[in-house]
């Protein structure tokens, strides 16, 4: 059904993270956009939204909004078309509000627990709030498949475009690092931030495909040129949806210069499953 039609291509990219030092090149990209290591995304967003609309926005959603707006701006699509879809991949969802609600049950008892914290503790909180603030009325989904969440979100985003459910889709990875999660899972590294890609169907650009359970490549990020494949140094800590999204951001940056394609690989730490995101320039 889709072979004759333009393919989903990446039209914009946006990043925001509050934990620096993941990768020097990534940090440089963030710095270029003025988004590096800002603990509070409100300043970055104030050019786009009245501060009064951001005041009660949980940090998790604010970071996501910042990355999403950055991707839309990069694609020259802000404000976005009304039928824009949103798909967010997250390992843990909204940590702070989830722990806030559990704290309110434990500290105050169920009878006095916070209804506001509960309503913002559903895992699709960020997707719902982004749809509201961006006035994006296409489908809005949240994917929770641990380290494979971003690959899953990208798969769904591509499927939404291929099935004509929206003209544009924002696909993101989003996680936060609440200290209470570290208490419960001390062995998991904390990786916080947001990365969004903007995709549309076009005849030119860089396509993204997801291959499930491929053979494990020699490096998590491989750049492919006419001379062969070259690894990009990249840390891939477990316990977050972000590393493969950061890998895509790095690879897309390098592909602007001298590569035709790139592979970004991610394994699940707890199941024998993996995904490979293949980025490829349409010739």
């Amino acid at each position, binding site marked *: 059904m889709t072979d004759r039609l333009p393919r989903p291509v990446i039209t914009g990219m946006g990043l925001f993270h509050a934990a620096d030092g993941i990768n020097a090149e990534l940090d440089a990209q963030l710095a270029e956009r003025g988004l590096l290591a800002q603990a509070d995304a409100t300043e970055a967003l104030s050019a786009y939204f009245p501060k009064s609309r951001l005041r009660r926005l949980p940090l998790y959603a604010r970071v996501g909004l910042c990355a999403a707006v950055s991707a839309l701006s990069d694609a020259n699509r802000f404000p976005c078309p009304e039928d824009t879809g949103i798909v967010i991949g997250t390992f843990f969802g909204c940590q702070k509000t*989830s722990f806030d609600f559990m704290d309110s049950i434990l500290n105050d008892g169920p009878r006095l627990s916070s209804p506001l914290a*509960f309503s913002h503790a559903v895992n699709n909180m960020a997707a719902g709030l982004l749809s509201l603030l961006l006035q994006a009325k296409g489908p*809005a989904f949240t994917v929770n498949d*641990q380290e494979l969440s971003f690959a899953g979100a990208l798969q769904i985003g591509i*499927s939404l475009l291929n099935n004509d459910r929206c003209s544009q889709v924002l696909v993101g990875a989003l996680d936060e690092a609440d200290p209470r999660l570290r208490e*419960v899972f001390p062995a998991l590294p904390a990786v916080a931030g947001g990365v969004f890609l903007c995709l549309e169907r076009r005849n030119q650009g860089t396509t993204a495909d*997801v291959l499930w359970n491929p053979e494990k490549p020699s490096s998590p990020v491989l750049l492919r040129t006419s001379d062969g494949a070259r690894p990009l140094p990249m840390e891939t800590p477990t316990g977050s949806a972000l590393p493969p999204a950061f890998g895509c951001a790095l690879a897309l940056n390098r592909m602007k210069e001298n590569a035709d394609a790139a592979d970004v690989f991610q394994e699940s730490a707890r199941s*024998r499953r993996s995904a490979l995101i293949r980025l490829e320039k349409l010739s």
Partner: protein
Amino acid sequence: MRKEEPVAVTGMGALCALGPDIPAIERGLYRQERSLSPAATLSEDALPFPFYSAPQTAWNGKGRQGSAADTLRLGMLAATQAMAQAQWQDASRTAVIAGTTSGSALHFLEGYRRRHENAGVSEDCADYLDCNPALTLGETFQARGPLLTISNACTSGADAIGMGIDLIRSGQTDTALCGGMDALSLVPHTGFARLMVYDDEPCRPFDARRKGLNLGEGAAFLCLESLRKARRRGATILGYVLGYGSHSDAYHFTSPHPEGEGLAGAMRDALTQAGLQETDLAFVNVHGTGTKENDRIEGKTLAHALPGVPLWASKALTGHTLGAAGALEAVFTLIALSRGVVPASVGFAEQDPEIGVSPLREPLAIAKKNALSTSLGFGGSNAALALSTECDHD
């Protein structure tokens, strides 16, 4: 959006308060006996709001774990039933798409309580990492295609089915095990009670005196495959998913759009994909939670978009099963279409003048073979599935 090829349903599995499998659920739907469990069954700390419990047999004699393992257990039971019926020989291009609200959320209250009390971390925290719905189901059934856990509040189960038909239609997978699953725990039970949308008596969807919802728990899975593949292997086809729609309200985080804009868009897309008109519909299985706002806006939207189409509100028999609801109600819809009789809407007695439509008070014999099932959720999500038991596609 245009008419698309139907996708075949070749396996179904479900469990909820009505029973541990599809035959028991079918009997329960038509007997119309509801059985609420006291909140203390869930936890001695639970606020006094009753709920619809999964059958005791679901817990395999061990009782609830109070962790993500409970949701996984319900999902595994329903998925196993569906896979046994479909008899797929090769899962190399099978997707698993599991909708859930609690199964992937940070709801490990007991483990966190122990941490509060400096008593170490208990197993329910570890269960959170070890019981991811799609990853675990995918590994169990050796599915090698996309494994997707969808957490989209109360539309999750319907969205999982919709994504399954999209992946099949666009050739990204051959077969898809799709559904929804949610066990109840103290976290969502307390949350809905504190939002003041929980009825302390049996709920009354669409009724003028409705006070709110009752929560429930359960799971349902459908085995979906392309019509061509199902016919080629001579599979017994139980029904068809003809269309799906998904729209966001972008209006308010917890209240639906006052004109039902997103819901109307989702229903329109589902009908367009199905190639159906409102006159082709035997009924709509409504979301009908029993809350003031949901039922008022859903009812008004349906009255405007699909005037005269019979409505069936089924949550008074199962409670609101959150991420499982859309998938469970897709199964209920296919059961009613197959049997040719739509059950009455238990709990409904008096029309709300603000809504202006009533769900069925008595069972209705139907000849038409198509129906819609609607779902609405926190965050402004709206989903609609067009389902059928007949197929005119060559």
